[in-house]
């Protein structure tokens, strides 16, 4: 079984997680830029974080046989802090990078005017740079947030076919599905969705445009939830092909819209002896 986790914050995870993910079938991840738990106070700390997503983290992932790409953005929460918003001016040079496959995660947190501005500006950046966008739906007042998100997406230059609405649940999936956007479900131990609820949603809304992620980060979360969903799908009668579609082909299709996805990472044993090192060291 091959698994692509389309939303996971590996910066917050250990190498044990990478090893366990590989053993569970995870071969590719996308790490969207997000809030680090502790508020940032300047654009400079964003830039160091973005550089880590383009340097150290893909290196770590490759050592465990996992292809790592990222999405770059100013997250909704920190879009409200005027000390942070100048980072928007730095985004264009990051959005040209080879391993950046989307703008994200963008969207709403508290649905403020500052978040309106950042969301609209970054949807435009996605359109300008030939990238799809990963749009997070808010944790509070979710359905109203989804509708407001859809309004902004529809007014933007980015087509709905290049937009992934994430953190959906039973209350928001119908409107999201009607919009034509891709549908993302985050599976957490306690909150967001669980594997059986995802299976129920898949029965109703189908596998065609659905992606499942662990959204694992520094909070209570589990990077192996994608595998649990795959197992729950099989137990519920979905086929191997259905599982492959939701957990591999759909994320490949969505992030492949960037034209920058590279999934040919050597197996960890080949790399451990310095495969990529030797290539340049000779």
């Amino acid at each position, binding site marked *: 079984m091959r698994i692509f986790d389309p939303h996971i914050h590996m910066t917050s995870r250990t190498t044990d997680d990478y090893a366990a993910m590989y053993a569970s079938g995870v071969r590719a991840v996308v790490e969207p830029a997000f809030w680090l738990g502790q508020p940032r106070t300047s654009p400079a700390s964003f830039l160091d974080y973005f*550089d880590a997503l*383009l*340097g*150290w983290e*893909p*290196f770590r992932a490759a050592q465990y046989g996992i292809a790592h790409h990222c999405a770059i953005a100013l997250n909704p929460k920190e879009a409200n802090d005027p000390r942070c918003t100048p980072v928007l001016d730095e985004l*264009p*040079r990051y959005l*040209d*990078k*080879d*391993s950046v496959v989307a703008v994200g995660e963008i969207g709403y947190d508290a649905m403020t005017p500052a978040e309106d501005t950042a969301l609209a500006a970054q949807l435009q950046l996605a359109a300008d*740079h030939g990238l799809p966008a990963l749009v997070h739906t808010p944790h509070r007042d979710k359905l109203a947030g989804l509708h407001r998100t859809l309004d902004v997406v529809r007014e933007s230059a980015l087509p709905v076919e290049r937009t992934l609405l994430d953190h959906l649940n039973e209350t928001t999936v119908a409107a999201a599905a009607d919009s034509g956007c891709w549908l993302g479900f985050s599976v957490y131990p306690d909150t967001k969705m669980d594997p059986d609820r995802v299976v129920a949603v898949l029965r109703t809304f189908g596998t065609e445009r659905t992606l499942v992620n662990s959204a694992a980060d520094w909070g209570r979360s589990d990077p192996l939830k994608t595998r649990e969903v795959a197992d729950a799908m099989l137990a519920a009668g979905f086929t191997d092909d259905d599982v492959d579609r939701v957990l591999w082909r759909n994320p490949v299709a969505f992030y492949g819209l960037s*034209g*920058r996805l*590279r999934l*040919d990472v050597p197996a960890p044993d080949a790399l451990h*002896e*310095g495969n*990529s*090192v*030797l*290539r*340049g*060291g*000779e």
Partner: protein
Amino acid sequence: MLTPPPSRTRADLAARLPDDQARAWFAEALADASRAATAPQGPPAADPATASEAPPAPAPGHPVWQSRFVTAGRHCGPDAADDVRTLLLIEARADTETLTRLYREGSAPERRAVLLALPFLVDGPGATPLVDDALRTHDTRLVSAAVGPYAAEHLPPHAWRHAVLKCLFTGVPPAAVADLARRAAGDAELARMLTALAAERTAAGREVPRDLRHALTLTGVPNEEP
């Protein structure tokens, strides 16, 4: 400073690219870089009549070839990207200021290409801060690129010895260290450091790497077998 690779290398590299589209992109990128070298004062505009695919708009004030440098991986494939980027830097005759900015604003593969280009482009020690930066990382792609001929020529003894140790720590093969035999010869301090590292490994019940014994032999300094 080393002589840039002969034009034959370009033909070899073009032959290694995945398809004709990549070869066309590579030829245009080299032409962009070459124009920047001959007219360094102004950023040249891409010629829309000859461009098979328009490159992304360069950052304000930066020439088109620098956008090509950033996006080389997706146009030429990751295996050829090192060589393509390095050749673009050489063709554009990038100066130390440009190399420093491209390194600082670069992804890890872009930084690696800057490091690989240093011996062809920089005469004095002005770019050693980039080498120092790369040697502070634990990213072996950067460490191995940092210990090339430029480091052999310009790193002072203390930094160079730590670079050799860093390679042994991170699994970068000694073959990546340019001029290892020449610089190690007679280096009693390097021999002491290697012997101490071997003793630490032995004390921990861990194997002494064969690469370490090899480096110690190259010092030629008489020592007890670690």
